[in-house]
């Protein structure tokens, strides 16, 4: 004969497991719903804050030391600095793609920031103490601007060495900036936020580059 206290205990435990099962079931349901909600709010495409705009890339070619114009339609953020970074990112993505005519590893993530600032302020900021470079620099105003392109150390470290290949990277960045942001007349380069002597042993990164002089003599377009 089963003692009464054992029967009571059995039913109490049975009830407890049924209740715990129900609670677990509900928790699982809620988690599933949260997951579905999160999925619905994750964009599956790049956010098109602004409609896709035409961007002009000057794409380098090592074989003949040339740059060719390439026009792409890209969704671009409204702020000039962010737009500059997005466009240069696309340019570096082309260089990182297999079979590129100007092969350079790194892609869009090689550009940490692009700061824009009035030309005179830019000269002072770059020459002065570090950190000033980013001060209030992102808003495009009227008048000529200097773009400060901050590259990653990994990009510089993996960049092929040579006068031609390094110059092409620097000049195609300058020319692409000027083609899309005509107010940018000067460009300076930083690597991991610091001034660096050369890109990979040749192209001088201590100097200011004038974008006006990076324009190809004959400008053609290829959509």
């Amino acid at each position, binding site marked *: 004969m089963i003692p009464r206290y054992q029967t009571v205990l059995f039913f109490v435990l049975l009830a407890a497991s049924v209740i715990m099962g129900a609670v677990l079931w509900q928790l699982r349901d809620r988690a599933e719903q949260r997951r579905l909600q999160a999925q619905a709010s994750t964009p599956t495409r790049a956010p098109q804050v602004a409609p896709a705009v035409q961007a002009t890339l000057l794409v380098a070619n090592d074989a*003949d030391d040339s740059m*060719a114009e390439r026009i792409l339609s890209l969704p671009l953020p409204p702020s000039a600095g962010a737009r500059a970074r997005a466009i240069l990112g696309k340019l570096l993505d082309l260089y990182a793609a297999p079979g590129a005519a100007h092969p350079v590893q790194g892609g869009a993530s090689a550009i940490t920031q692009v700061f824009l600032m009035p030309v005179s302020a830019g000269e002072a900021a770059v020459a002065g103490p570090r950190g000033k470079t980013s001060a209030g620099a992102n808003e495009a105003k009227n008048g000529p601007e200097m773009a400060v392109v901050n590259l990653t150390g990994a990009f510089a470290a993996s960049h092929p*060495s040579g006068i*031609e290949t390094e*110059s092409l990277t620097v000049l195609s960045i300058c020319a692409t900036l000027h083609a899309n942001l005509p107010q940018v007349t000067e460009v300076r380069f930083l690597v991991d936020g610091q001034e660096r002597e050369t890109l990979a*042993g040749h192209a001088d990164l201590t100097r200011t580059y004038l974008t006006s*002089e990076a324009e*190809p*003599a004959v400008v053609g377009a290829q959509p």
Partner: protein
Amino acid sequence: MSSTQFGKSTGFRRVGTPNLFPRVAGAISIFLAFAPLELAGQAPAGLPGAAPPQFVVVLDAAHGGNDTGGHSVNWAEKNFALALSVRLRSLLEARGMDVVTTREQDVTLEAEQRDEIANHANAQACLSLHASLSGNGVHLFVSSLQPAEAARLVRWKTAQATAITRSLGLAGVLNSALRQAGLNVTLGRAALPVVDSMTCPAVALEVAPDANSGQTATDSLSDAGYQAKVAEAVAAALVEWRSEGLSGGSHKGAREP
């Protein structure tokens, strides 16, 4: 696809006060000072009965010592540049030229040391020798400085400005000779501190792999036959440059590349 020859229009020039110079060395004061430099090719014409003017070529094997330049597992730009300098020197001396080299060994040289050697040589041609695993054939670069009138006082960092026209002429002669040898050649302008401070007609010559050889980049650059072909073509160009310069009396108006 429209493609434009970059070198024809894309010279960048230094603006503002140049700050740090690649390969900063002790002699910064030299950069900021105005240094009187005798301009190459402006020596008075030989007096009657004087010995014929000597034709001097400066060969600057780039990099060296701690500065390897471009490199891969079994190839280093500094060694290639030195080997090319040695090869060229014997070819040029065999053709009766005086050759001054900036280095004969694997040593570290600062930019201004190279320029002091080059500018004291009073040379009719200066070649800065580089190599790269990227590209195809030979890349020729002339300083992107804007031409300037020859003056008694020349700023050290932009001394090449007074020789740009002649440098373009030298690049043109090199271009023709290298193409005649069946090599792919590109011409460009670039800001190169070593070349920018030279007073002689100066060209940076970067040897890239021969893409038509079917070899890997390293194998192509290590190919003795390819090196010899480039060196022979450069020597032929300098013979041509000497005949143009000395028989014509002046390099002014030399053809553009």
